[in-house]
C-alpha cells in the first residue's frame, strides 16, 4: 500500500510542480511527466504484486467527513484495472509531454498537467476506494479533471460544446451513483464496501440497485444509449488525453458495475440478458456509427463505444453463466471481459496516439484529406496497423484472445443451455461475429484511408514522421498487443486471482478447473498464432528467394487502361464505407447534401455527408429543448410588478393557512 500511496503522491505532485514551474518551458512538462512515470511504476509494482499472489493491501484511516472513511484496498480485481491504468498512463504522458510542447509550446501548460495528474490519480483512487463517499469524491475529481482536459483548446467553439455535453452527462450519471450508493448504504447498513451486507437484499431492492448502477456507470462507460457524450468529448481532447479517457477512464464505469455486482446478491437471469442486450446494442451501434465517420478520432471514439459493448457482453455472458449454474460460461465471460478491459486500454491507447501523430503531422483528422502516410510515417503506420488489427480481433494479437474467451463463454452456454439462455447465447455469438466483421471493414477503411495509397491533400503530402518521444509509446503499446496475443495462457494465469475473487463473490465453486480449461485452449491459440507467424515468415522468405535476381520494375498503378490516374481518383473513406452505410441507413440516418454531376460536360459537383448521433439528436436534445421552453414560459412569474409580488405573499399565506391549519 505504501507503494500505491507513493504513486498517488508522485502523480499529483508532478502536476503541482508543473503548475509551480509555470511558463518555464524546460521544466513544466518534464516535471509532470517524470511524476506520472515514476508514480505509475510504483503503482504498477503494487498492483502486480497483488496479482502475483501477495495479500490484499488495505488502508483504513478515519476521515472526518460525514459517513466518510479513507479506506483503500487493492484486491485482485482492483489490481487488474490498475495495471491497465499504470501501463497506459506513463506512455500517454511521455507522448503528451512532447506533443504539448510542440503543439501548444507558447501556452501555459501548468493547468493541463495538473488536471492530467488529477485524472490519473482520481482513476487510481476510484479503482481502490472502499468507501462510498471516498469513491464519489475520487469519481468527481476524475470526471472534472477530464472536463478541463477536454476543454483544453477552449477557444474553439466545438470543443466547448463537446466539453459541455460531457459535463452534463457525467454529472447526471453521478446523480444516479449518489442515489445508488446511499441506497446501498441503507440496505447494507454501511457506506464502507467491506461492511455492506447486501447478500440478503430483497429482489426488488437488488434490481433497483442494479438498474441504478447500469445507468450511472453505463453513462461513464459510454453504453448505448448513454454514450452521446463520448464521440463528442474524446475527439475534442488532446490525443494523449483521449487515449487515457478512452483507454482507462471509461473503464471506471465497467469497474464500478463489476464492483457493485460483486456486492449484490446472486444475479437473476434478466440482469444477464439486459447486459447482453446493451452490450450487443453498444457494439453494433458503436461500430456502425464508426463506419459512417470522416473524423479519425471520432471514428476511434465510436469504437470505444463498440468495445465497451463487447466488455459488457462478456459481463452479461458471465452473469448468465452464474445464473444458469454453468461455471465455465461464467468464467469465460468474466475472463474475456476483464482481459478485454486491459486489451482495449492497450490498442485504443495506441490508436489514439497514432491518430494524434497523424493530426500533428498533417494538421487534419479528416479521412478524406489524408492518405499515403504509410511511406511518410512508417513507424506510425506500422504501429497503427498493429492496433487496427488488434481492435478488429485478429490473431495473433490480443484483441482476438479476449474475444475468443467471450465467444467460448457464449458457445459453452449454447452447447449446455436451453431456452432463454440459448437465445441469449445465439444473440451474443451472432452479435460478436457481426461486430467483428464490421470492425474489420471499419479499420481497413481507417488504415487504408490514412496510410495507404496517395495523399488526398497537400498537408498529408508534406507530412513527416513524428519525434521519437511520440513514436516510443506507440511501439511499446504495439509490442504489448502482440505480446498478450502470443503469451495468452500466461496472461490468463496472471488473471486467475482476480477471476477467483469474482467467482467467490458470485458464489461459484473455486474456478481452478475452468481456468485450466481456458488456459489450455489459449495455449493452443497462441500455438496457432506462432504457427501463423511461422507460415507468414516462410511465405515471405520464399517470395524473397523467388524474386532474387529477377526484374522488379516500378510503374504506375494499373488503371485498367487509364493512363493518368491522380490521387483525387482514389476511393475515399466515405465511398469505401458507402455500401455498408447504405445498408444500415435505417439505423444511421446519414444526412447527405450535394449536387451530382450532370450533362455531357458536368459542372463542378459536390457531395457531403454527416451522421449525427440519433440518441443525441432525437432523444436528449428535444427533451432539453422542451424543458428550456417550458421554463421560458414560467419566467412570467417574475415580471416586475411589486403588487403582484405582494399578491404571491398574500396568496401563499392564505393557501398555507387554509390548507395546512385545521
Amino acid at each position, binding site marked *: 500500500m505504501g507503494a500505491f500511496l507513493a504513486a498517488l503522491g508522485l502523480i499529483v505532485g508532478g502536476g503541482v510542480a508543473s503548475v509551480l514551474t509555470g511558463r518555464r518551458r524546460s521544466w513544466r512538462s518534464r516535471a509532470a511527466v517524470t511524476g506520472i512515470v515514476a508514480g505509475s511504476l510504483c503503482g504498477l509494482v503494487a498492483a502486480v504484486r497483488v496479482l502475483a499472489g501477495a495479500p490484499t493491501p488495505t488502508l483504513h484511516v478515519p476521515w472526518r467527513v460525514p459517513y466518510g472513511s479513507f479506506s483503500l484496498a487493492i484486491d485482485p480485481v482492483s489490481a487488474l484495472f490498475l495495471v491497465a491504468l499504470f501501463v497506459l498512463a506513463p506512455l500517454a504522458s511521455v507522448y503528451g509531454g512532447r506533443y504539448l510542447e510542440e503543439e501548444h509550446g507558447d501556452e501555459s501548460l501548468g493547468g493541463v498537467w495538473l488536471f492530467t495528474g488529477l485524472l490519473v490519480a482520481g482513476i487510481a483512487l476510484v479503482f481502490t476506494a472502499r468507501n462510498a463517499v471516498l469513491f464519489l469524491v475520487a469519481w468527481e475529481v476524475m470526471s472534472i479533471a477530464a472536463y478541463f482536459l477536454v476543454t483544453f483548446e477552449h477557444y474553439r467553439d466545438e470543443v466547448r460544446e463537446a466539453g459541455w455535453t460531457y459535463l452534463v452527462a457525467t454529472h447526471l450519471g453521478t446523480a444516479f451513483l449518489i442515489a445508488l450508493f446511499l441506497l446501498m448504504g441503507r440496505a447494507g447498513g454501511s457506506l464502507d464496501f467491506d461492511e455492506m451486507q447486501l447478500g440478503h437484499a430483497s429482489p426488488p431492492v437488488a434490481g433497483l440497485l442494479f438498474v441504478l448502477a447500469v445507468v450511472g456507470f453505463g453513462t461513464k462507460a459510454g453504453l448505448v444509449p448513454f454514450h452521446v457524450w463520448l464521440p463528442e468529448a474524446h475527439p475534442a481532447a488532446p490525443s494523449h488525453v483521449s487515449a487515457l479517457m478512452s483507454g482507462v477512464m471509461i473503464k471506471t464505469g465497467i469497474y464500478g458495475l463489476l464492483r457493485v455486482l460483486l456486492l449484490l446478491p446472486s444475479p437473476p437471469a434478466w440482469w444477464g440478458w439486459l447486459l447482453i442486450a446493451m452490450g450487443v446494442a453498444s457494439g453494433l451501434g458503436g461500430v456502425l456509427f464508426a463506419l459512417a465517420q470522416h473524423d479519425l478520432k471520432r471514428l476511434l471514439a465510436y469504437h470505444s463505444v463498440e468495445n465497451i459493448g463487447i466488455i459488457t457482453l462478456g459481463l452479461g455472458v458471465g452473469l448468465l453463466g452464474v445464473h444458469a449454474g454453468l461455471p465455465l460460461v461464467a468464467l469465460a465471460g468474466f475472463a474475456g471481459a476483464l482481459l478485454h478491459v486491459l486489451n482495449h486500454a492497450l490498442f485504443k491507447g495506441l490508436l489514439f496516439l497514432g491518430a494524434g501523430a497523424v493530426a500533428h503531422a498533417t494538421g487534419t483528422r479528416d479521412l478524406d484529406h489524408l492518405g499515403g502516410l504509410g511511406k511518410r510515417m512508417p513507424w506510425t503506420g506500422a504501429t497503427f496497423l498493429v492496433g487496427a488489427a488488434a481492435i478488429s480481433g485478429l490473431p495473433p494479437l490480443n484483441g482476438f484472445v479476449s474475444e475468443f474467451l467471450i465467444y467460448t463463454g457464449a458457445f459453452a452456454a449454447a452447447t449446455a443451455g436451453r431456452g432463454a439462455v440459448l437465445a441469449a447465447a445465439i444473440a451474443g455469438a451472432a452479435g460478436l461475429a457481426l461486430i467483428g466483421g464490421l470492425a474489420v471493414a471499419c479499420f481497413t477503411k481507417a488504415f487504408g484511408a490514412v496510410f495507404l495509397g496517395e495523399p488526398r491533400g497537400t498537408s498529408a503530402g508534406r507530412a513527416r514522421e513524428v519525434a521519437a518521444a511520440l513514436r516510443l509509446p506507440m511501439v511499446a503499446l504495439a509490442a504489448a498487443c502482440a505480446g498478450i496475443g502470443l503469451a495468452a495462457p500466461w496472461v490468463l494465469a496472471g488473471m486467475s486471482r482476480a477471476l477467483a475473487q469474482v467467482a467467490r463473490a458470485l458464489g461459484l465453486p473455486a474456478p481452478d478447473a475452468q481456468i485450466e480449461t481456458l488456459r489450455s485452449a489459449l495455449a493452443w491459440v497462441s500455438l496457432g498464432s506462432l504457427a501463423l507467424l511461422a507460415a507468414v515468415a516462410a511465405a515471405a522468405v520464399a517470395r524473397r528467394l523467388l524474386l532474387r535476381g529477377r526484374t522488379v520494375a516500378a510503374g504506375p498503378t494499373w488503371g485498367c487502361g487509364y493512363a493518368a490516374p491522380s490521387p483525387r481518383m482514389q476511393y475515399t473513406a466515405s465511398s469505401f464505407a458507402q455500401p455498408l452505410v447504405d445498408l444500415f441507413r435505417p439505423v444511421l440516418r446519414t444526412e447527405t447534401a450535394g449536387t451530382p454531376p450532370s450533362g455531357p460536360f458536368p459542372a463542378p459537383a459536390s457531395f457531403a455527408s454527416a451522421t449525427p448521433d440519433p440518441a443525441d439528436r432525437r432523444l436528449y436534445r428535444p427533451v432539453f429543448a422542451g424543458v428550456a421552453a417550458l421554463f421560458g414560459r414560467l419566467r412570467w*412569474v417574475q*415580471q*416586475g410588478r411589486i*403588487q403582484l409580488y405582494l399578491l404571491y405573499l*398574500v396568496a401563499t399565506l392564505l393557501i398555507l393557512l387554509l390548507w395546512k391549519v385545521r
Partner: protein
Amino acid sequence: MFEINTLLVGLLLVNFVLLGASRLGTSVRQVAAQGALLSLLTLAEHAGWSAPWRVWLLALGSGVVKAVVFPYFLRRALREADVRREMEPYVGFTASVLVGVTALAASLWLASRLPLPGPVASPLLVPVSLFTLLVGLFLLVSRRKALTQVVGYLVLENGVFCFGLALPEDAPLSVEVGILLDIFAAVFIMGIMIYHISREFDHIDTDRMSSLRDETT
C-alpha cells in the same frame, strides 16, 4: 372616550373610508386617524385613565408617531413628489368596498371560530383587527402609488398591533418600544425612498417601476 366598542367601530369605518378614498391626502389623513384610534384603544383596553404608566407611555408614543409623525412624513413626500393626488387603483373604489365587505364577513366568521384563552375586552376586537389586517394587505396589492403602499403597510401594522391588544398579557415594554421604533424607521426610510423615486421617475407609480424582471418577452 374609552368605550372600546365605539373605538373599534371607528376603526372599522376608517377602514372602509380607506378602501373608498380616491385621493392620497384622504388616505393619509385616515391612516393618521387610525393611529390615534389605536392609541386610545390601547388605553381603553387597559382600563382607561387608570392604566399603568407604561401603557400610557406606549399609547402616547404610538399615538404621536402614527397620528402626527407619519402623516407629516407622508405629506412632505407628497409635496416634494408633487404628483397628481388621485389613486388610480387597479381595483375600482366600489369594487374595493365590496371586497372590504367580504373581508369583514370573513374576519367575523374566522374570529367566531378562533378559540381564545380568556375573556377579551370586546368581542369586536379580534374581528376588527383581522379586518384591518386584510384591508392593509388588500391596499398593498390593489393600489398603484408608492405612497398608498406605505399607507397599506401602516394599516397592516395597525391590524397586527390591534390583534396584539387581544393578547391576555402584553409584550414586555422593551419589545413594544423596539417594534414601534422599527416601524418608525421603516416608514422614515420609505419616505426617503418615495422622495428619491419621485426624483428619478418624476412619478411614484410603482407599476412603472418594473424594469427588473426575468420575463423573456
